[in-house]
């Protein structure tokens, strides 16, 4: 039972990071019907920017408490990521809005290669250690342990998601976003400035990815220029699992995927009588994804999507 709770906590932590990134995918998809394949690399830029800010902080004000430093790192990484993502939209997607559907996919992949190469030039090729800022003393929760970083991650993810929901449901720009994803043409006729909405969507998605990126670094203590690939892929799967275009779907899909993955890794040995080991962890996410989509072709909370490749 203790293992179960422990894996559940690990899954929740992993899943809330997936959810933060998945929101970026799903929001962009909602307004543009486009998969922003470079989004995983925005997470990487967030982690790298956070690390640079921490290095500067450590030389300027080494006596600040860990929480404050981490907070400053996140606050600094957010505008960097926003800028990067808005530039991506401007350069790679805006001119292709009426192009064949696969064209922006290819520019997105090109941008992803470019971002990784730039990161490699700036921060180097080898993995960088991410400083441990919070006390490594774990907190006991039932029979399981949760580190302070993980706890902070959960809190931050919850706060960000609540803020996002409030933004989307209560503010003017949120209403414009909902209208645009419902029907961009009619939203335009009603006076919604679609370019403004799209830029806002990319910026908000990037901010969430920045939070996830810095916390990813703090949690796993090592970052690299290619780190964005796997979380990006999983988060995209999570967004699809939840029903792409739906922000609640992305949250649920992300957390579900994280929990399935870590429970799967914990129990796959017992389930298959030792035939398959925990290195099959990644299979779980995809197998569940395939099963769910076969039963429910538009995801858990999704609606029908456009049917052209």
């Amino acid at each position: 039972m203790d293992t179960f709770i422990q894996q559940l906590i690990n899954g929740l932590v992993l899943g809330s990071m997936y959810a933060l990134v998945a929101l970026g995918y799903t929001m962009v998809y909602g307004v543009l019907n486009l998969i922003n394949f470079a989004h995983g690399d925005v997470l990487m830029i967030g982690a790298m920017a956070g690390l640079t800010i921490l290095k500067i902080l450590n030389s300027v004000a080494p006596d600040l408490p860990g929480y404050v430093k981490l907070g400053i790192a996140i606050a600094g990484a957010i505008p960097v990521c926003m800028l990067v993502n808005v530039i991506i939209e401007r350069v790679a997607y805006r001119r292709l809005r009426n192009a064949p559907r696969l064209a922006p996919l290819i520019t997105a992949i090109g941008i992803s290669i470019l971002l990784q190469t730039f990161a490699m030039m700036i921060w180097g090729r080898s993995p960088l250690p991410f400083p441990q800022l919070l006390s490594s003393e774990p907190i006991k929760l039932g029979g399981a342990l949760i580190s302070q970083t993980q706890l902070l991650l959960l809190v931050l993810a919850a706060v960000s998601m609540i803020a996002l929901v409030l933004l989307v449901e209560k503010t003017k720009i949120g209403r414009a976003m909902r209208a645009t994803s419902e029907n961009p043409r009619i939203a335009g006729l009603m006076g919604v400035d679609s370019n403004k909405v799209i830029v806002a969507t990319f910026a908000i998605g990037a901010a969430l990815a920045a939070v996830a990126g810095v916390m990813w670094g703090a949690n796993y203590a090592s970052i690299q220029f290619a780190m964005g690939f796997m979380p990006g892929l999983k988060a995209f799967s999570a967004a699809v699992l939840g029903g792409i275009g739906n922000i609640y779907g992305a949250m649920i899909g992300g957390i579900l995927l994280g929990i399935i993955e870590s429970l799967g890794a914990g129990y796959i040995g017992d389930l298959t009588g030792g035939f398959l080991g925990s290195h099959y962890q990644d299979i779980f996410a995809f197998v569940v994804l395939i099963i769910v989509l076969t039963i429910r072709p538009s995801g858990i909370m999704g609606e029908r999507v456009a049917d052209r490749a």
Partner: protein
Amino acid sequence: MASFFDFDVKNTPGKAYSSMALILVVLLIFPFFAAQFGNSWVRIIDIALLYIMLALGLNIVVGFAGLLDLGYIAFYAVGAYMTALLASPQFAALLESVINQYPVFGEFLVGVMGPEILANGIHLSVWLIVPLAAVVAGLFGALLGAPTLKLRGDYLAIVTLGFGEIIRIFMNNLNEPINFTNGPQGVNLIDPIRVFGVSLGGEPGSRATVFVGGFSMPSVNAYYFLFLFLCIAIVFVTIRLQHSRLGRAWVAIREDEIAAKAMGINTRNVKLLAFSMGASFAGVAGAMFASFQGFVSPESFSLTESIAVLAMVVLGGIGHVPGVIMGGLILAALPEVLRHAVEPAQQAVFGRIIIEAEVLRQLLYGLAMVLIMLNRPSGLWPAPKSEDRPDGDIDKPAPASGVIPA
């Protein structure tokens, strides 16, 4: 170009056949010319030909039938690993691990197959490997197609992507308890291809030189001719398919699945055929890759490769065979050419190396993808629009807001 070369067999057969013959002659002479600058250049073209086979196969799935497949490289892997099992000592290792884990079953297998296989593994000839690779990969294609028939657009993309990753993870981990794939180390010592008793890898001690009759040529040239032959065969099959009843059914599904169904097309079977035909091309390419390299490992079959092949199709001109060939050639050869060219170029211009070749290569590769797509969104050499309905855009609302309609 269009005025000089003309492939319109129906209207101007003489000109079309002479253009084809001219291109064929150039293709046949090419390796002897390129070999003057070193075998590595021919090798680059060999790899490019493999990618062209892959791109043509994916073009059937994505270009003709409009099914976005992001896990296409899995079929390439299936072909390559099948060859690795059936044309290398690996099968001996497989049997040995079975004997260690399940002695009774293992002894039974050895009894059936004979002790020879336990000692040396299986070494099938290329005449069996190629059709087997096509059939096995085709079966895998249908296997992937069956559960995904209901899915559309981006949902299909993510499921195929997941399928590709699953195959890769299995290749990485299926070395225990039974050693199928030798895990991350990969399978070594795969037999080179033998055609009529001549090994294209060159006989031992011949320094990778192939002797045919009185001629001798480097091994890479011999493989070039084999791959070229297969490429031409695949191009021929693809073009014939495109204008067949099946090809028109694929295009109909791509344009409007519901309407296609209403016209009496069995969309289920036609889609499955698209998946498995595309997959079988990749299976053959994979078998060739394994024999050519003599080595396979899971690294060669990552998602990045799937994406690269998709990029070739889209960049070249989706659904258009000459465009896809061009896309494959450019994207497969460009990084290699850049690898050879950027360092000397920097030396010449600046007198020293400012940016590492590897980094610059990546930069230019990414930049090329973005710039080509921005300037030519339908690809470098897109399909002529003849198959579109004249009023094809009538059901799409005009993009008044500058946003793609949902």
